[in-house]
């Protein structure tokens, strides 16, 4: 039940209503009985149309009754009679939509009848959609029916682009129209070599149009979401960004990172064209699918090749090197088509103008940050970006954590612009998350200092494959979930966190090289004989 206000009524009114409803129910029951009787006898005739019509006009989502009407339609063989009947059906379904414009059953019936009737009038239906959309420009059922009509009635993409242009011209706040354009433009003006796969002159005029929209009404989300999409490059093509292999016991460990998510089932290793039996795992507990790991039995000679599906990704994992001091390949490319810096800069200028007029508009601020990061991620703007983020935290506290995570990401990526840093020091940065671009994820760091931040969980540890010393003291951790991915870990400082429960430390025993853990200043120290209990977790780890 949607949008039905609860109203107080007198006892008298209630009684009157009760009597009226009782009557209605009685009538409903008697019609239903007749309908089901006819169904039993397979009598799908004109009478069934009349009977079901009596119910559907007030309960249009009674799907079974629509089915009976369709059975009745299917019984008609004479073309002229069928055409006439179908026209009636269209009229009837539309009258039901007047009662409930969101009735799935009525909309589907329209589709069915249009496809079934001998001479459907697509033009008429298109006009009808336009008319309906004047009353409610966001009814997604109607937009979907429109697309159905467009497809079957061979309406051109041009006409539809024009239709959405007109809709937008009369009201910029029209998410449905922007959404439709995101599908129509790449279809009508394709250019795979350009950002978003749209021809560049079209893309430019679209940027103008959407700017017009948010200059007119800077508080309307629709245009901002669409603008963001226009400025965001397509999803990346698959590239191997990083590969590390090293020896562990009798095995070779291989770690791979891709430019975009890959399902582990698609990965394979071959040695001289021969498939090697390996079990790939997504390393992360959060299934990020970018980073994978496997172990293979030590192979005496030759090179290994890595495949995704059947496509070669990397041909020479050098087993010899791997056996000595490990092997690393890295080549970070996003595999995306970006807009040119000139275009981004001119966009930035416009948005800054709007910012001068609308200082406290959050959409403007978010977009400024987005553009600044795109134009010059690692240099001049970090202070400005920070200022905007501070302001967003004040203006829009409900989404505080989103902005904090964004700020954390920016700090990490700025700091890790040289991804091969081996000593990471990021203490006192107010980090709420360590999730960021895989390139910046401390891949090669041996020492990681994240002390005195606001971390509530260890959320990116699957990338810390080379870390030996980690300092997480002075955060808000309640557990150490995730630490099990850091297999080379030997020293861990988690002092001054919020760890209360011994069980939350069980994962530590999965780090086989771990020798020292600092637990000072955690509530856990108030547990009776906590030191004894810790010994049960591991006898080789020294707890301070």
């Amino acid at each position, binding site marked *: *039940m*949607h*949008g*039905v*206000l*609860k109203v107080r009524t007198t006892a008298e009114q209630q009684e009157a209503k009760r009597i009226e*409803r009782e009557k*209605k*129910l009685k009538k*409903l029951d008697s019609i239903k009985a007749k309908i089901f009787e006819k*169904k039993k006898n397979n009598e799908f005739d004109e009478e069934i149309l009349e009977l079901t019509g009596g119910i559907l006009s007030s*309960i249009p*989502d*009674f*799907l*079974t009754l*629509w*089915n009976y009407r*369709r059975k009745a339609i299917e019984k008609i063989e004479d073309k002229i009679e069928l055409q006439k009947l179908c026209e009636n059906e269209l009229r009837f379904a539309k009258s039901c939509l007047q009662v409930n414009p969101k009735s*799935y059953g009525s909309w*589907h019936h329209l*589709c*069915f009848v249009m496809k079934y009737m001998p001479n459907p009038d697509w033009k008429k239906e298109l006009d009808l959609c336009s008319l309906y959309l004047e009353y409610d420009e*966001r009814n*997604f059922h109607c*937009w*979907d029916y429109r*697309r159905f009509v467009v497809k079957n009635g061979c309406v051109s993409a041009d006409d539809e682009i024009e239709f959405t242009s007109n809709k937008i011209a009369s009201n910029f*706040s029209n*998410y*449905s129209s922007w*959404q*439709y354009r*995101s*599908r129509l433009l790449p279809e009508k003006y394709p250019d795979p070599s350009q950002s978003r796969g749209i021809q560049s002159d079209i893309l430019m005029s679209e940027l103008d149009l959407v700017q017009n929209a948010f200059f*007119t*009404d*800077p*508080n*309307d*989300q*629709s245009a901002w*979401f*669409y603008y963001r*999409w226009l400025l*965001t490059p397509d999803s990346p093509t698959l590239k191997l960004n990083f590969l590390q292999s090293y020896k562990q016991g009798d095995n070779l460990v291989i770690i791979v990172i891709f430019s975009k*998510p*890959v*399902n582990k089932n698609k990965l394979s290793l071959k040695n001289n064209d021969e498939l090697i039996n390996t079990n790939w795992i997504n390393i992360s*507990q*959060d*299934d*990020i*699918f970018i980073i994978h790991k496997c172990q293979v039995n030590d192979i005496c000679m030759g090179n290994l090749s890595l495949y995704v599906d059947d496509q070669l990704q990397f041909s020479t994992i050098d087993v010899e090197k791997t056996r000595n001091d490990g092997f690393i390949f890295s080549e970070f490319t996003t595999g995306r088509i970006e807009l040119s810096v000139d275009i981004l800069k001119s966009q930035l200028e416009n948005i800054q103008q709007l910012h001068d007029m609308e200082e406290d508009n959050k959409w403007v601020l978010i977009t400024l940050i987005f553009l600044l990061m795109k134009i010059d991620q690692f240099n001049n703007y970090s202070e400005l970006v920070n200022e905007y983020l501070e302001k967003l935290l004040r203006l829009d*506290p*409900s*989404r505080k*954590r*989103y902005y904090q*995570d964004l700020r954390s990401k920016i700090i990490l990526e700025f700091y890790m612009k040289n991804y091969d840093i081996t000593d990471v020091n990021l203490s006192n940065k107010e980090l709420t998350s360590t999730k960021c671009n895989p390139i910046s994820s401390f891949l090669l760091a041996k020492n990681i200092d994240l002390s005195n931040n606001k971390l509530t969980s260890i959320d990116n540890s699957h990338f810390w494959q080379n870390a030996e010393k980690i300092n997480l003291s002075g955060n808000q951790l309640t557990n150490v979930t995730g630490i099990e991915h850091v297999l080379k870990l030997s020293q861990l400082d988690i002092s001054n966190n919020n760890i209360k429960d011994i069980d939350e430390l069980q994962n530590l025993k999965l780090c086989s090289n771990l020798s020292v853990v600092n637990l000072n200043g955690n509530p856990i120290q108030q547990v009776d004989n906590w030191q004894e209990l810790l010994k049960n977790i591991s006898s080789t780890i020294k707890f301070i």
Partner: protein
Amino acid sequence: MGSVIKDVTITDDHPSNFLKEKHSDYIEHYGSKHDVYEYKMSEYLRMCGLYWGLTAMDLLGNLNKMSREDVKRFVLTCQNDDGGFGACKDHDSHILHTLSAIQISMMYDLKDEINVEKTVEYICRLIQDDGSVMGDEWGEIDTRFNFCAVASLALLGCLNKIESKKEAIINYVLSCMNFDGGFGVRPGSESHAGQIYCCLGCLSILGALEHVDRESLGWWLAERQLPSGGLNGRPEKLPDLCYSWWVVASLKIIGKVQWIDKEKLTRFILACQDEETGGFADRPGDMVDPFHTLFGIAGLSLLKSTDNDVRDVNPVFCMSQDLLNNLGVKSSIIS
């Protein structure tokens, strides 16, 4: 010109405590007291309605108050010869009611009573070669039905039956992904929080969440929260309690639930309660119904905002987590 945000106002007159017992009473007696008319008029969705009510009771820890025998009798009379389930006795089969019937069967351990083999055949018949799924034999296509089909088979432990169509289903769902990272009813349809939930649920069960743009989608979903704390399902729309489920479950599946203000949302959900009758409405002051009652309770469970008064709900299946653990049914969630 500035756009006016469509929203509601919550005042101190609206309830702010969780009225657990009242909700339990409301569901237990639904259809037998004041709401006889409403109950009879909604027979076309009875099976779904039963699932809403029973799941609400299960999450409240009061499933024992409902009659297993009555439920069992009802569910069994709704299975048709084609293997699917209708909303009521004599109603045609539909995938929506088939999923609800299966969910109910799991709650009451009725798997051995229904004809599982035929049910599975019915569901598989509705899955098209291109990966889209029909609601029934009449051919309506909707991503809601992708979720229904996949969730039904997962609950029955029969996902292996669609191994050859898995790839097509995933690709079809992805073809419904939009510029904002969300999903719509069909390819080209506007993103809508309800459809997003269904698509994420489907991808989660099939282990294919890697394709989701979690940053864009998470941000878009977080922007569904309005100043009142309530959530809408699309930009520039009014808040509605049921989106506390569709949006928050979606955020939970992609690991971004911290991006909304849980306290404010909790306050909105609690304000949608009816102090007199029990139950939840779509917005404060509106009429309550079992649909919004379930999603109010399930939303509170996801937000973990009533301490231990509500049992844990699984964000993919919208059933109690304990039950799914017992059944060994899995779905992936990004943490």
